[in-house]
């Protein structure tokens, strides 16, 4: 272990050994507590800025959950620092704006890759480098959904920076703005995965993303009425995938 690793990481405030080999990363700090409630036992490790970490045990497997806050900038910091304390698998669990009309609330979206519609990852490597999810995490997430009886869709997503340019609350004619991504087979919009995939790809660790679908953002149905249950399913899918990775020796 080098000197740097013996100190607490600057933002996530963790030491090696304080997080499990597999870490789930929601954007929202409140979701870390949902994770803790779904584990057999869990303890709060640390809290600093938007980075809250709980570690716990589920069916004998140690798993951690660290919130990153919203957006690629804090996700890049969280990812980089988690890798520096020895994390092997990072799975983003989050919500999104579905843009394909067939997507429904409660369904899961497993990303195989992401459009790099943000600038954070470009500071690491030029824009032509692909943001690809690790195929072993994709498989673990598929198997987790099957085990939990959750409907899932496999495909690419679009990561971008400016929520108020591409969302149901966006300014101006966001439909026209988004049409090209709909035509290009992109399933949903979100704000973190491409940076996660690029950093993980460059540093040789495994990363993946599972997102909870709501109503497609062009429908005016509003909020998913069963959001709390569905978010619980999302977190459970992440926990189950972490267990599967452990069973396969991938941690």
């Amino acid at each position, binding site marked *: 272990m080098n000197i740097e690793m013996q100190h607490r990481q600057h933002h996530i405030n963790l030491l090696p050994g304080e997080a499990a080999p597999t870490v789930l990363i929601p954007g929202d700090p409140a979701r870390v507590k949902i994770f803790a409630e779904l584990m057999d036992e869990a303890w709060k490790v640390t809290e600093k800025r938007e980075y809250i970490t709980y570690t716990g045990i589920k069916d004998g497997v140690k798993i951690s959950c660290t919130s990153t806050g919203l957006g690629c900038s804090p996700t890049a910091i969280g990812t980089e620092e988690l890798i520096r304390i020895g994390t092997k698998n990072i799975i983003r669990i989050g919500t999104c704006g579905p843009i394909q009309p067939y997507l429904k609330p409660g369904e899961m979206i497993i990303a*195989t*890759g*992401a*459009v*790099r*519609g943000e600038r954070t990852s470009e500071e690491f*490597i*030029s*824009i*032509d*480098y*692909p*943001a*690809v*999810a690790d*195929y072993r995490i*994709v*498989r673990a997430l598929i198997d987790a959904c099957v085990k939990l009886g959750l409907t899932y869709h*496999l495909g*690419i997503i679009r990561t971008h920076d400016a929520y108020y340019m591409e969302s149901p609350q966006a300014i101006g004619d966001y439909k026209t703005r988004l049409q*090209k991504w709909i*035509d*290009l*087979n992109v399933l949903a919009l979100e704000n973190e995965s*491409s940076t996660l995939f690029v950093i993980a*790809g*460059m*540093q*040789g660790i495994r990363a993946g993303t599972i997102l909870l679908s709501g109503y497609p953002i062009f429908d005016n149905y509003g909020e998913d009425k069963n959001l709390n249950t569905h978010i619980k399913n999302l977190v459970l899918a992440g926990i189950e995938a972490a267990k599967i990775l452990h069973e396969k020796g991938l941690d």
Partner: protein
Amino acid sequence: MEKQHHIQLLPGDVGETVFLPGDISRAKVIADHFDSAELIAQNRQYNTFTGMYKGIKVSVTSTGIGGAAAAIAIEELIKVGAKNFIRIGTGGAFQTWLPKPCILVITGAVRGDGTTREYFPVEYPAVADFYIVEGMITSAAELNIEVHPGLEWSHDAFYAGSPLSNLDILTIEKPWIDAGVLIASQEASTVLSLSMARKCRGGTILCSSGCHQHPEMNATPEQMEKAISNATKISLETAVKLHKLDHGL
């Protein structure tokens, strides 16, 4: 419907899975691995054989070199009924730890080419179909063939990214080598991103005789022939798996 402009094929002429070598002569080599095969069309660099493998109709179409030519083949093949595109090709490895020769299952590609930029914004990912990647890795294990999954750097100018170049290629390629990219080649970016955008499956398997850092240590032509044969066997078994997956068998 008239025959497609370049590939000279009609609907029904190809199977759902089409293998895409760059080299024209390799189309025949690949077709020789089918249980049966027939030359269907021949125009420019586009030679197509269709035949059967384990009861499934499969095809191979040579594309010639580069994304420009590969994109034409894919667009026209979709119009005659193709759904799964598997490039079987060669490239120059970047990582010194890879064996010589090596077989690589491409999971994604750096979009260093011009063709896909004309199609899609450069931030759009060139990512391989998950079931092709998994099918290749599983098939390779079943056939007891060593494969390495990872990324390709796709680019256009062979003589600006090859050991035969007069340029300092290791400086040009350093960002990709440092980022763990496995190999330089030319077509994966097009095959993967165009397949994704057209709601088809796209994948790539590559053989490399050696690495750019040590071009003097290349594998022999005979070893490369064997590697290409193995990559073809893996691709055929993957086609069988895709057929089962897509037809609920």
